[in-house]
């Protein structure tokens, strides 16, 4: 049965939210322009009511969509293509943002929350700020509108029925047809980070609107300086949330994707990294605006640029223009025109406001002194902007291709082949400058300096950081990075690494020197120093974990297969056959076979359990005393798509551990996704992921069939393993179908003694409609397949068919990431620093607001 009501309700609420956002924008605009205070208040009240209705409508949309997903209404396209019955509730939430519509909805939802907060925390600024807010909401809700105006489809509705999207013959025969199950969630997104990373990131996206709205409001009503005070805590909050969102994404990539790191310069990562850099630059200029008009003008331009860059990155990732160059492939919904209009409207609006107000922004002609804090802050902001420019310039290649196509010639630019050399090796220079400035700038911040004082303040931290850096260099294998490079390239690389190390340490030391006296006097002012120490630590962490990541799984066999390219042959991966230990560096590795993860039981050998008709239930084939499992027990699987490879690491006699890298097999999407497992220690992470294993869809090559006749309790050999024919059982049903009439099925139980324990094989023999059928049983771990070929009732013996194949194997890569914890610890400090700064600036705003100034 098709559930029409909930979809109609959702669609109605989408239209309501769209219309109310337009009306709210208009009424807030009227309120902005009213001179008379009473009338202004009246319009403000009306607008507030309308915005609240808008907010309720949005919450209603979220609720309706979740209802559809949660109740498995697969007649809806959104549920059918993003969810499935077996998904637990927390991944049903992830379904929300797998599709474009849902992720727009998330963004809209956050804007509503932020709008309500702004309405209730502002007096003076409410009307102009909310005008911008409601206008943005109108554009965003139009993306999920799904209404056709004169052959132009406006937006893509998440409440569309499957039959309206897909032209399948089944819908012609039966329009009320409801699919039994959905396609499920992309295995890449079935990760706890994917439950919290997108909401955090979208909150970051949404919060960039707040400083933007204040800035536009300030320009519009002619308060060119005053907008900064209320906007600053929000800009800091936005940078915090966006930064945390980016790092969560990086951590997700580290734990889930298998490219062997946390940052890949993927276009989607870049598209968020760039606005974040510009936002951080904007915050710095916003802090310096009081004394420098250059800083004020820069603040206006940078705050606006941040928001425009967020729109640009939305356009990049959702219009399909990136095509194959990204792992984050949103399917193109034909919204590119609408997205482009959204982007261009705000670009045009901002440019118009800036140009028309520019001459009115106060200026003075005084030169900025080298020993003023404004000078250093501006230098820092400029460096951050150049960093951002570099990344966005390269990421935009597909856009240049498109523009060239439109202009009638072909540009044919492809993304750089070596991401590391085209991004990392250049960004590192800017990072060095950032480190120097973030250390030095702080001295000017707290004290008026001249040349002599500056020298005195500098010399201590400089000497200490040099000393510490040299200790680090001698204590680590500093000169082991990039073993493939030679000569000048290598020397140049060490120069970069050396400078980054010294400058980052300098930044940490200099800021620590500042923070100690501050703590005694006024701890509320320590936000900046904390943040800068965090950044310094992150840079050190990135330098070591990325620059010195070492592939441990080098091929030590020295075997060269291809004589044509001896130097090319892969040495980074290791082939492991099951139960056949191999040496890898200081470790001895042993692949123990495939595992499934069960509730309360942990990892259980896949060959010792058999699946049932319910994808969530398995049955134990034999007793496993170590895990308190008895033969015939029902086991509940956690993540039915997940299979784990048990890899034992042995280092010496006592330091042993086991890693479980994972593969996710999604049948409906035909996807195979590998995820690493990480051995974490304080000093470094050992990261292991599977590169490939025998394709489970491929039958493989089996030996010729060998027949053997056995009576009950007799022994025989299969592939050199001892096997015992233990018993026979008559079956009442096969795969859920009851056997009737003269149909018979029997299941034999054969116990096979493997290297590490016993396995049970249960081949089946059926006679149905007077035809004989065989269901073979495969023990993957041992590479054997057993069938019942025939039964001799007279002799009470069974004829078994035996086939053997190659042993199970995996190819894995193991990478060591030294000192990665410094990166995470630095991130933690950065967050604390931002939080302190936000509190300080918000209290400042509150004080002024309550005085009635703003």
């Amino acid at each position, binding site marked *: 049965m098709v559930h029409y009501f909930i979809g109609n309700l959702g669609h109605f609420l989408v239209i309501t939210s769209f219309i109310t956002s337009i009306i709210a924008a208009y009424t807030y605009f009227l309120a902005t322009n009213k001179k008379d205070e009473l009338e202004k208040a009246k319009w403000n009240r009306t607008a507030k009511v309308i915005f609240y209705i808008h907010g309720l409508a949005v919450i209603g949309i979220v609720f309706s969509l979740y209802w559809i997903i949660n109740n498995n209404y697969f007649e809806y396209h959104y549920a059918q293509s993003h969810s499935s019955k077996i998904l637990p509730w927390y991944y049903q939430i992830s379904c929300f943002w797998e599709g474009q519509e849902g992720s727009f909805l998330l963004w809209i939802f956050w804007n509503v929350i932020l709008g309500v907060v702004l309405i209730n925390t502002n007096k003076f600024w409410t009307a102009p700020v909310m005008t911008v807010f409601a206008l943005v909401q109108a554009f965003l809700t139009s993306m999920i509108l799904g209404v056709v105006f004169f052959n132009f489809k406006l937006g893509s509705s998440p409440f569309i029925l*499957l039959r309206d999207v897909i*032209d399948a013959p089944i819908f012609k025969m039966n329009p009320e047809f409801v699919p039994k199950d959905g396609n499920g969630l992309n295995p890449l997104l079935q990760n706890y980070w994917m439950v919290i990373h997108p909401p955090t990131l979208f909150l970051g996206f949404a919060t960039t609107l707040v400083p933007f709205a204040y800035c536009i409001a300030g320009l519009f009503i002619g308060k060119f300086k005053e907008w900064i005070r209320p906007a600053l805590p929000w800009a800091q909050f936005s940078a915090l949330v966006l930064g945390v969102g980016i790092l969560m994404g990086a951590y997700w990539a580290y734990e889930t994707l298998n490219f062997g790191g946390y940052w890949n310069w993927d276009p989607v990562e870049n598209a968020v990294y760039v606005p974040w850099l510009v936002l951080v630059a904007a915050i710095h200029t916003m802090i310096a605006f009081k004394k420098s008009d250059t800083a004020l003008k820069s603040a206006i331009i940078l705050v606006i640029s941040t928001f425009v860059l967020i729109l640009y990155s939305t356009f990049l990732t959702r219009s399909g223009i990136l095509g*194959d160059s990204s792992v984050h492939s949103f399917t193109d919904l034909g919204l590119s025109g609408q997205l482009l209009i959204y982007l261009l409207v705000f670009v045009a609006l901002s440019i118009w406001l800036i140009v028309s107000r520019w001459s009115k922004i106060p200026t003075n002609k005084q030169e900025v002194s080298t020993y003023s804090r404004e000078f250093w802050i*501006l230098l820092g902001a*400029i460096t951050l902007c150049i960093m951002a420019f570099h990344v966005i310039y390269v990421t935009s290649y597909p856009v240049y291709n498109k523009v060239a196509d439109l202009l009638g010639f072909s540009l044919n630019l492809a993304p750089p082949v070596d991401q590391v050399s085209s991004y990392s090796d*250049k960004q590192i220079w800017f990072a060095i400058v950032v480190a120097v400035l973030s250390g030095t700038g702080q001295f000017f911040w707290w004290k008026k300096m001249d040349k002599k004082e500056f020298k005195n303040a500098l010399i201590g931290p400089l000497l200490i950081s040099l000393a510490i850096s040299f200790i680090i260099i001698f204590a680590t294998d500093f000169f082991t990075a990039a073993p493939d490079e030679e000569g000048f390239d290598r020397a140049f690389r060490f120069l970069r690494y050396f400078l980054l190390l010294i400058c980052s340490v300098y930044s940490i030391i200099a800021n620590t020197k500042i923070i100690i006296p501050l703590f005694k006097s006024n701890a509320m002012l320590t936000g900046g120093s904390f943040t800068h120490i965090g950044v310094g630590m992150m840079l050190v962490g990135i330098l070591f974990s990325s620059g010195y990541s070492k592939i441990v799984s080098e091929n030590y066999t020295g075997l060269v297969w291809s004589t044509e390219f001896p130097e*090319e042959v892969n040495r980074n991966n290791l082939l492991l056959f099951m139960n056949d230990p191999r040496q890898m560096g200081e470790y001895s590795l042993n692949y123990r076979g495939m595992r499934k993860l069960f509730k309360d039981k942990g990892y259980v050998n896949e060959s010792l359990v058999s699946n049932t008709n319910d994808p969530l239930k398995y049955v134990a084939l034999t007793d496993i005393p170590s895990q308190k499992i008895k033969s015939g027990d029902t086991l509940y699987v956690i993540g039915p798509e997940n299979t784990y490879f048990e890899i034992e690491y042995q280092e010496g006699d006592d330091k042993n551990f086991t890693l479980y890298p994972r593969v996710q097999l999604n049948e409906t999407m035909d996807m195979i996704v590998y995820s690493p497992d990480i051995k974490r220690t304080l000093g470094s992470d050992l990261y292991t992921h599977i590169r490939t*294993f025998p394709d489970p869809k491929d039958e493989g090559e089996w030996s010729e069939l060998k027949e053997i006749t056995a009576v009950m309790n007799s022994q025989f050999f299969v592939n050199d393993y001892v096997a015992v024919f233990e018993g026979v059982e008559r079956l009442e049903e096969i795969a859920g179908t009851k056997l009737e009439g003269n149909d018979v099925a029997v299941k034999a139980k054969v116990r096979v003694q493997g290297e590490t324990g016993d396995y049970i094989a249960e081949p089946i023999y059926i006679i149905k409609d007077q035809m004989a059928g065989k269901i073979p049983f495969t023990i993957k771990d041992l590479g054997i397949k057993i069938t019942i070929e025939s039964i001799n009732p007279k002799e009470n013996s069974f004829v078994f068919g035996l086939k053997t194949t190659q042993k199970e*194997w995996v190819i894995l890569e193991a990478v060591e990431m030294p000192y990665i914890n410094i990166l995470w610890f630095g991130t933690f400090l950065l967050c604390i620093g931002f939080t302190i700064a936000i509190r300080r600036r918000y209290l400042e705003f509150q004080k002024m607001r309550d005085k009635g100034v703003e």
Partner: protein
Amino acid sequence: MKKTHIVGLLVIAVAIFIIISTTGDASSYKNFTEAKEMAEGGNNSAIHVVGTLKKVNDQVVGIQESPDKLSFYFTMVDQNNVEQKVFRPDPMPTDFLRSEQVVVIGSYREETFVADKILLKCPSKYKEEEVKI
């Protein structure tokens, strides 16, 4: 000259340097014929080639896997139907044979194209039209 002017000029210089040096890093999409000509002309920079695996009667042919499974050869057909033997010094991806489209990134070494990177496009990730009944 004022300090702001010096800073301004410096920024412009760095920006121009970035544009020039990164544009040099950019790769390009080519077919095998063009790639071959490039290599014969002494240009060994890595390029992107888009194509499919060679198939006879729907069976992928021309795969040669090394005994240690750490590298393999395959035959690729580019968009102009030119066939090329490609060497990939890395384990064969699990769903390689099922891929619908292959992008190889690399360059010619003698007669063989050596792929430093492979991007696969597998069919059903992009196909939503099927309904399971």
